[in-house]
């Protein structure tokens, strides 16, 4: 069901929505932080945050409040909040809109989260290419500091908070949280083994919480509404998948973009109502539900929850297009919710070429630390390229499965799975298309990603 919200997006449609003035006047800006600093203990903040059932917006969907509760005071070391704004997952274009058009929500979120987890410094890690985002965040920090919301005594309380914008240098892997921490420390962005988890030893070896930027930006809303009321907006409240979030729609739709909706919208609504339907009113070939690492879905795919006791059973056998988009519902549909930004492919798109495009991306972006990922992503890229060129064999087509399976579970970070799972998705769901290339029935010259006209 489509239920539009405008907690974050109200500022988007207001002139100078990125300024402190507008944020305070039209978005109840800094009211939540002021209330918290005046009357709540950190433990109370975490309890309230848990009630909101905010599932991490970066793709993994881990409950935000639970993550905050992992932070334990260290006898000698400071704690840090690190905000992941390295938005780089192909198909994902939501965090950027917040930074550019409502940066104060992120700054206020940082203040509240720092207080909750016992941190005094928040680092917002922004990918370097997003120059406007960085400038807007820096501007917001300056304004907030001038008002005394940041600094030594925010809202009159002796609890110093500073927010620092840190820039990356063009590496997709730095969106992986431990890689991001290494990059923040001034190192190559190679992921770390876990444990220790960031809450034990994160940035600079200190207890650290890493949250996605959208997760942090919605925090003020959580406290303005109250955790429970926030969560209740969602149709999946009972699955502890609460509130509202930003949804993106891109690819072959008539009106691509980013909207703020209550959790519970379906892919069909996202594609045909929000996205305005498919370009040229073609049929839907496939949709990648939440960033390139989430396995592709076809309209005939269904959710599987045969166990009658499962809370997902009511959608058992339903088309993936008619299931509310949620962390658990997408998992039961053989994919992942990811970042909630869907990439739509119309009938006529070549799925082999689409897979090759993505494998070329993963090949380029693998950090090279683990052999299965470094070599595997390169092999996937090259073998699909070979098949597209009409030079591949059936053995090689089968080999692609082996290569992908050889990456799964054999790497330090989830990049490996993020490469192998979409690869397997394309291979399983479009086997006939791959075979057509091998048999020479289809040629690269007639393959298309963009639609004609």
């Amino acid at each position, binding site marked *: 069901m489509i239920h539009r919200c405008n907690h974050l997006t109200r500022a988007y449609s207001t002139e100078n929505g990125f300024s402190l003035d507008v944020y305070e006047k039209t978005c109840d800006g800094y009211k939540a932080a002021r209330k918290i600093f005046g009357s709540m203990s950190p433990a109370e903040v975490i309890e309230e945050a848990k009630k909101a059932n905010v599932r991490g917006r970066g793709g993994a969907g881990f409950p935000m409040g639970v993550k905050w509760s992992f932070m334990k005071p260290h006898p000698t070391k400071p704690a840090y909040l690190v905000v992941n704004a390295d938005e*780089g997952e192909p198909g994902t*274009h939501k965090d950027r809109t917040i930074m550019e058009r409502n940066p104060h929500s992120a700054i206020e979120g940082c203040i509240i989260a720092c207080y909750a987890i016992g941190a005094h410094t928040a680092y917002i890690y922004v990918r*370097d290419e997003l120059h406007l985002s960085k400038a807007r965040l820096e501007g917001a920090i300056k304004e907030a500091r001038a008002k005394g919301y940041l600094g030594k005594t925010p809202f009159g309380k002796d609890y110093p908070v500073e927010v620092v914008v*840190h820039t990356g240098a063009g*590496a997709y892997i730095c969106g992986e949280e431990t890689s991001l921490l290494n990059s923040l420390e*001034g190192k190559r962005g190679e992921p770390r083994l876990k444990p220790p988890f960031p809450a034990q030893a994160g940035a600079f070896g200190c207890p650290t919480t890493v949250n996605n930027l959208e997760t942090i930006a919605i925090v003020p809303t959580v406290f303005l509404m109250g955790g429970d009321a926030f969560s209740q907006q969602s149709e999946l409240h009972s699955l502890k998948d609460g509130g509202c979030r930003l949804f993106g729609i891109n690819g072959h739709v008539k009106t*691509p973009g980013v909207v703020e909706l209550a959790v519970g919208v379906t892919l069909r609504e996202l594609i045909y109502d929000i996205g305005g339907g498919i370009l040229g009113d073609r049929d839907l070939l496939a949709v990648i539900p939440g960033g390139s690492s989430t396995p592709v879905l076809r309209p005939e795919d269904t959710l599987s929850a045969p166990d009658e006791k499962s809370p997902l059973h009511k959608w058992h056998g339903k088309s993936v297009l008619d299931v509310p988009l949620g962390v658990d519902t997408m998992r039961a549909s053989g994919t992942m919710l990811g970042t909630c930004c869907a990439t739509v*492919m119309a009938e006529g798109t070549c799925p082999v070429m689409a897979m090759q*495009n993505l494998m070329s991306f993963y090949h380029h972006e693998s950090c090279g630390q683990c052999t299965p990922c470094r070599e595997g992503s390169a092999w996937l890229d090259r073998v699909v390229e070979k098949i597209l060129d009409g030079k591949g064999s059936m053995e090689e087509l089968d080999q692609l499965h082996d290569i992908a399976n050889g990456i799964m579970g054999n790497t330090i970070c989830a990049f490996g799975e993020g490469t192998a799972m979409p690869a397997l998705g394309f291979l399983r769901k479009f086997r006939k298309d791959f075979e057509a290339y091998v048999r020479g029935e289809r040629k690269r010259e007639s393959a298309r990603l963009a639609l004609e006209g």
Partner: protein
Amino acid sequence: MTFALNPDRERELEALLLKYPTKMAACIPALHLCQDQNGYIDEEAMLYVAGRLELPPAHVKGVVTFYTLFNQRPVGKHQVWVCKTLPCALRGAGGILAHCEKRLGIHPGETTLDGKFTLRTAECLASCGTAPMMQVDKTYYEGLTLEKVDEILASLGASVNGAP
């Protein structure tokens, strides 16, 4: 020639150092300052950063070689990055890239003879909802058409087919 940041950028670096508990953490921002000044990062600049942040030169080189955005060779005055990843490709990024190649007379990775433009392909730049797009230096150009690309390149002084 020995590399050194100009006084303004040196002040920026000083301010950066106050933001982190370690000097090493300023490594990537410091390298950006060097690249902003020179357009690329050579051995001299790496040695400068290593000296300034008390890091082994090998560490700095390791960082420079890891990240896509650090140029290790001189580049054109303007860097044109055309996003080629799937969401942009579905909206015609292939045509945009081909047009840039034709218009500038170069392939991705090359620089025009007059040194004005370096053409490169980019992986997803988070503009999927406004695809196709390209980044020129620090500016995003979204919802591109071939006509818009012509306008943008012309405004930056591109001559037809890269002829000087």
